[in-house]
């Protein structure tokens, strides 16, 4: 097996609060290969964005990495110095932000915002070369060059997302973390953006972590899927494996809702009632035990370990693969 582009092992992240450390991400492991893409799915607050931020070294000041490592091209992202991390950012790992966010600075022209990233990481590049690169990036995401001089508020939502993508590609990174890039866009634009992302990822042979709450979207673009719930990864496998034979009850619920999407709205009310936000560790038992139809006394008492269904497909449920 070729060495993974990114390999995350037993990553745990907590937030310092008045009452101790609240775990937001608990013992998460996954890998992303060059040219491969991992979709992290889960409801909001399940810790998926925290993982993305941790990989970029952009955790909030009160967040702390409790344990784990993230090997990226031979370096442990968790352990590198702040300055080294700054150099890695964008140059090698870049990020596509949510369009609904104010990811672009309103007072600077988009051209400047893109070229700024290039200049920071490739200071030797001539001004001409930078301008040329910026123009070609705009070409790539199919925005007329004439709009380089515009300000973010002059773009529509979809266009802004394209700008963000162009920005993410500016320094030819090897890994892209896309955090809900299509949320809050209407369906048609969403599809365009998704296909654009998919294309670049494949053409440029990039590794990608795609974070979304929408399994359908993830299913569209990713080669691997990790399902997260309450700070833990509950199922991890290739797209096929996860979608076709979901092992975890939660995944099954997600997949179930996905399938009914075309016919009629699924009754999601049962699924999305959660008890403890990120506080998985606090309850002691399986965080899903209250809503899981198959929960037993054991589930209430202790955490489940990994159950390997296949070599690449793992589920964190003692009853996985054993039928209902």
């Amino acid at each position, binding site marked *: 097996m070729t060495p993974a582009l990114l390999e995350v092992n037993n990553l745990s992240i907590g937030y310092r609060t008045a009452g101790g450390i*609240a775990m937001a991400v608990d013992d998460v492991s996954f890998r992303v290969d060059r040219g491969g893409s991992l979709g992290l799915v889960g409801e909001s607050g399940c810790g998926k964005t925290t993982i993305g931020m941790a990989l970029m070294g952009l955790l909030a000041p009160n967040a702390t990495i409790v344990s784990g490592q993230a090997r990226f091209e031979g370096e442990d992202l968790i352990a590198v110095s702040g300055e080294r991390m700054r150099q890695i950012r964008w140059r090698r790992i870049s990020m596509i932000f949510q369009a609904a966010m104010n990811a672009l600075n309103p007072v600077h022209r988009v051209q400047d915002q893109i070229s700024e990233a290039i200049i920071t990481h490739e200071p030797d590049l001539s001004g001409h070369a930078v301008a040329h690169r910026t123009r070609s990036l705009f070409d790539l995401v199919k925005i007329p060059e004439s709009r380089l001089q515009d300000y973010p508020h002059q773009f529509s939502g979809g266009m802004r997302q394209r700008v963000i993508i162009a920005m993410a590609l500016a320094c030819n990174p090897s890994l892209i973390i896309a955090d809900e890039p299509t949320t809050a866009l209407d369906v048609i634009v969403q599809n365009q953006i998704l296909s654009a992302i998919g294309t670049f990822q494949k053409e440029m042979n990039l590794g990608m972590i795609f974070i979304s709450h929408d399994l359908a979207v993830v299913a569209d673009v990713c080669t691997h899927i990790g399902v997260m719930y309450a700070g833990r990864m509950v199922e991890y496998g290739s797209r096929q494996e996860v979608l076709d034979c979901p092992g975890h009850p939660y995944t099954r619920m997600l997949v179930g809702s996905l399938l009914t999407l075309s016919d009629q709205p699924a009754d999601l009310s049962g699924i999305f009632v959660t008890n403890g936000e990120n506080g998985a560790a606090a309850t002691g038992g399986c965080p899903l035990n209250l809503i899981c139809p198959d929960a037993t006394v054991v589930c209430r008492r202790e955490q489940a370990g990994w159950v390997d269904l296949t070599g690449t497909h793992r589920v964190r449920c003692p009853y996985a693969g054993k039928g209902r």
Partner: protein
Amino acid sequence: MTDANLPSPKTGTTPGMAAGRALPHWVDRFLGGWRVYRKNTIGRIGMALLVLFALMATTSFIPQWVDPMYHPMTGVDPQISYSTGPSLRHWLGTDFIGRDIFSQLLAGARIAFMVGISSALISILFGTTIGMVAGYAGKHTDLILMRLADMIMVMPTLLVVLLLSALFGQLNIWIIVLMIALFRWPGVARVIRSQTLSLRHRPFIEAARVAGASHLRIIFRHILPNVMPLALLYMTFRVTSAIIIEAALAFLGFGDPGTVSWGMMLQWVWKTGHMFQAPYWMLPPGICISLITMAFYMTGRAMDDVLDPRLREEETTP
């Protein structure tokens, strides 16, 4: 009223609870606010200073009661005919004809509170009423009132009062207070107006309207309690500016010559040529003016923190 049955908005403060049970709710809210306030360092310093000045103001009657020579305006020490430094007999020394500076300073605190608070009260009264009316009525009323506010807001109050004193001669201290108030309401009105605008379409207001409450009743029963804390906050800032304007006016020589305010004291120092020779006379009033404005300002800022739920959250959540 059906307010209580409506789902309450997300924030901790529940608008519309005023009707019927206004008092306990108020007390509750106040105590809650106080608990947050107490943790604020700046607020604590401000409050302590204010208590100190209040103490000065209340004790200002004592010296002249001890001995008429301590009367801040008319009492002179029979043995002293020029400005002297601090001594046991005169804790801060005497002014150029032998009046006691310390008792003048105490009297000044009284005037400062009087000027500051009464002028702030009046401007808040104007500002809140006009702001609520403008916000609630909307349309032309709003437009006209806000244009008026804009216009008054750009006027430099001190210079306006100066001009008026040129025209009308000597101004009485209460006229000065009124003038300051008349030119300081627009800021309050704008804030209250925007607050009212955001309240206007809240369910409990709509409900009251549907229930047939008159406009006046809606404004004073339902909107007023909700803008009250904000108005109070602005009052502390208005107190500051009123004190400063009165002091500046007195310093320039257009104050009420019958009152012993700190500005007046500074003016006496200045005009009798003791500015750079009698630090014991020149420093205290200036320090007092600066400190009392700072105290009100700090109190205001701390109150601002208390009233701003965003900042409050920041303190309690990770």
